[in-house]
């Protein structure tokens, strides 16, 4: 993240990061996780799962902040996030 003036406490601020996992065979391709991820991490893949749906794929995995919203909104128990090592805010990627 870039700042026009760097806040004094930049070094102490850490941004939570997450790793998103997709259980492709459970997905029914509704797209809710893609539409409502606040960080735009996901997109529909061109692959089919064995039921003929397009599961999501993490196109920008580094942007995930482990908010679990995809996990909460998915009607099919097909996606979840787990916490990854935190980063300082200056190394955090911009959306």
């Amino acid at each position, binding site marked *: 993240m870039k700042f026009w003036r760097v806040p004094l406490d930049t070094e102490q601020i850490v941004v939570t990061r997450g790793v998103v*996992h*997709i*259980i492709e*065979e*459970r997905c*029914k*391709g*509704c*797209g*809710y996780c893609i*539409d*409502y991820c606040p960080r735009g991490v996901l997109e529909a893949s061109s692959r089919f799962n064995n*039921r003929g*749906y397009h599961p999501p794929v993490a196109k920008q995995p580094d942007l995930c902040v482990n908010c679990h*919203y995809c*996990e*909460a*909104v*998915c*009607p*099919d*128990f*097909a996606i*979840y996030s787990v916490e990854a090592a935190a980063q300082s805010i200056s190394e955090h990627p911009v959306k």
Partner: protein
Amino acid sequence: MNGSTAPKHPLDGLLRTDRIPHIWCPGCGIGTVFSSSLIAISSTGKDPANTAVVSGIGCSGRGAGYVNLDSYHTTHGRAIPFATGMKLANPELTVVVFSGDGDLFAIGGNHFIHAARRNMDLTVICVNNLNYGMTGGQAAATTPHLAKTSTTPRGNPESPFNLPLLAYASGATYIARWTMLHTRDLTQSITEALTRTGFSFIEVLAPCPTGYGRKNRLKATDMLKIYQEKAMVKNGINPAETILDLEHGITLGKFVEYDRPTYAENYKAVCGE
């Protein structure tokens, strides 16, 4: 996929995973409400093994078949009487009724009002998808005025129930309404309902893209957009003032919470042990 590295969803422990994927259609909101309910059950701090889930008939009624706890898939409209019996036989149990608008308010409507009147210590979660999904998208007691369904092709001439007002007038002591998009508020309401004593009612709007959605030209994501744009959170508002109108606004929030003696407490006081 290699079995040992197969990803495991955090709710797998509460799910009968051999039955997943479930039968709910792509984009159906019931799964999200079910997921919120499972998160709430696991976050109360109580032993989930002491929780029983009871469902009636219909798409939402399938919930009981997917939860890896004691559960009961009852006859049509009768989830509340079965739940009442369970609670009276074993007062230590936390009893959750997870069912749909048709099951709870059409065929089961009288059971609902009497359990609320008695302040039975139950948590009733009603997934409201505005129609009878499982049987082909017919008009229900919750279908909005003028909405199209397979039995109202010119638009619904009837008016729907206002469920929070119905619950309030009947005597429910906790009443909230959310949509499946408001998962965090919903989970919090269910958690509150599970940890309090008395008749708690939570209505949750969920899209039925196959039934209601197709007839009203609303894709699943259109319905979510309506939830997002029309939601008006008004905690504590009089249930008579809540509205559910996909064009003009949907009142959400925790509307009512108060204490009065439960059925079991009154029974004990009047009739003894």
